């Protein structure tokens, strides 16, 4: 299909220390089509951020090491590119927005300096035009009176505005793919709603693809076309939004959905997944989820789970549920 913009194939990234090897990504594959919003969901340490950093080749090496796999962007393997070629991709074609806008903005430069830099690194444009474009970008991301804000330093902006500036920087060269790594986690709900609306508006206007990384299932349900659920360095389930939320076929996805608190569940005990997320250096053999899984059978501890196809692109790595046709979880209220 030529509609596919980004295709990550069997990506393996390990972090190698003196005594231990953390297998952050253990064979991860996913795809983003043009104009699509794809969500990577998972808890801390599951490898979702590492996979994004690997796409842009900005994981620290060493200790990180890409052990195998491909990152195809428009058919080109980004892992084969030279440093200079990669530099042309970053920002120009793939841009990234990080979680903490205060640490990703440079505190000693003004907003204009920082947006300007993003433009001039990639394009030869004269100063006047750059200035005009900075104003236009700030307007696009909904910052009121952008002319006045250009000379502000990051500390003079609120958290929501800082995140808007980060988005403006990411948009500076009109990327084809925007990677957003937990962009609203540090923000208040009302501000989060503003930023989410902004993403959707920008995406429609610019026909941009969005790879959105988050742990918040509420946000996912609101924006995702397709979802990949990650656990301990592998993708355990993938499918479109309604499949994942209404017909989850992996015990981990089911567990995540049923453990969400809601007012409707008041008075009853919340379902919870026992145990904790495994240390990436000491992952259990077989299915990494089996020590916490209610459905685990003996084979789960020894065999790496195969992919089971439920049709319509809905895949899950749990043969136990697939073969036993275990009852579905009740619909979320």
């Amino acid at each position, binding site marked *: 299909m030529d509609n596919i913009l980004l295709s990550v194939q069997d990506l393996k990234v390990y972090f190698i220390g003196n005594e231990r090897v953390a297998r952050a990504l253990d064979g991860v594959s996913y795809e983003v089509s043009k104009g699509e919003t794809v969500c990577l969901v998972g*808890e*801390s340490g599951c490898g979702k951020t590492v996979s994004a950093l690997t796409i842009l080749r900005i994981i620290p090496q060493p200790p990180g090491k890409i052990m195998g796999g491909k990152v195809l962007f428009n058919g080109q393997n980004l892992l084969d590119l030279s440093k200079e070629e990669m530099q042309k991709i970053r920002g120009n074609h793939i841009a990234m927005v990080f979680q903490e806008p205060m640490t990703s903005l440079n505190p000693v430069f003004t907003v204009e300096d920082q947006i300007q830099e993003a433009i001039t690194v990639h394009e030869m444009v004269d100063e006047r035009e750059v200035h005009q474009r900075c104003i236009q970008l700030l307007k696009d991301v909904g910052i009121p009176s952008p002319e006045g804000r250009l000379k502000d330093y990051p500390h003079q902006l*609120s*958290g*929501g*505005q800082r995140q808007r500036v980060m988005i403006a920087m990411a948009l500076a060269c009109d990327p084809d793919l925007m990677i957003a790594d937990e962009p609203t986690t540090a923000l*208040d*709900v*009302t*501000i*989060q*709603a*503003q930023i*989410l*609306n902004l993403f959707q508006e920008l995406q429609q206007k610019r026909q941009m693809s969005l790879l959105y990384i988050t*742990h*918040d*299932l*509420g*946000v*996912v*349900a*609101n924006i*995702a076309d397709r979802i990949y659920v990650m656990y301990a360095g592998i993708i355990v389930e993938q499918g479109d*939004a*309604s499949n994942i*939320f*209404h017909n989850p076929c992996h015990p981990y996805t089911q*567990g*995540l*959905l049923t*453990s*969400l*608190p*809601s*007012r409707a*569940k*008041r008075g009853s*005990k*919340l*379902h*919870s*997944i*026992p145990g*904790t*997320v495994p240390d990436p250096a000491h992952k259990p053999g077989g299915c990494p989820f089996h020590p916490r899984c209610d459905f685990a059978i003996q084979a789960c501890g020894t065999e790496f789970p195969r992919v089971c196809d439920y049709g319509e692109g809905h895949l899950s790595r749990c043969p136990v549920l697939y073969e036993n046709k275990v009852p579905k979880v009740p619909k*979320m209220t």
Partner: protein
Amino acid sequence: MTNNTILKVEGLKKYFPVRRGFFQKLIGWIKAVDGVDFEIYKGKTLGLVGESGCGKSTTGMLILKLLEPDEGTIIYQDQDIIGLSQDEMKPLRKEMQIIFQDPFGSLNPRMTVGQSIEEGLRALGVKGHVDRKTRVSNLLEMVGIGPSTADFYPHEFSGGQRQRIGIARALSVKPSLIICDEPVSALDVSIQSQIINLLKELQAQLGLSYLFISHDLTVVGYISDTVAVMYLGHIMEYAPADELYDNPLHPYTLALLSAIPTPDPDDRHELKALAGDVPSPFNPPPGCRFQGRCPLVEARCREEEIELYKVNEEHTVRCWKVIR
């Protein structure tokens, strides 16, 4: 004050002075908590919700007198504690405990978990090494991490387990009231539900009362009996949880509720975002605190202080536009 009330707060105020320049001239006040009233009932949970900077954590600190309140009354079981000195507060410290948000920052990395929990017992005056050791084991058992872990150091635990240790520490002195300051905000979804369940179980088992401070309306809606919505130092709406979620009145409560994305792809409503940012509590304008972002704002909102109106016996709201 009824017999069922464990804590009653009235007109609580805390202003922080802002000084600037060589002579440290006073240039204004940050009105962090500006006249807050609420009641916590025995064995029940009061949820205090609001966005960052609204004064919810300051309120928690004031109740424990970790910060000295400027005005108001705090009545803990028929005793006004506002004027008490730190020495006089000491016996009450056993009654009121706090659980912090960040389980990494709130445990001493150089003390074993056992020592950390024992510290509280020593302050309580539990004599005898063996007695204290058994108490520690019991506490660790109670929070679900097993007594054998008493000799481990905090870094050997995950975030969720550390939060359990924080809870064990708070429980060590047998308190009646626990102030939970964003206890699950730093935790992963699957761990969050474990801790919420634990807090609920302990409440049922020990008859604890909670002041549950959080920015997350879904968690608060699940765990609380009564909810107070706070904005810039004021309580905007105060009602039993069911009433508040079924019949929210204040434009700010409505905005908060409609800004939460629901975990259901079929229910994709456009998130109604409030315009603007949370304003700073530094020298707030006269009138309603919410005036700058309110869709219903009128001249009167800018001119006079808006009082809390009674909707019914249990439901109050600080907005004159929405009352019938």
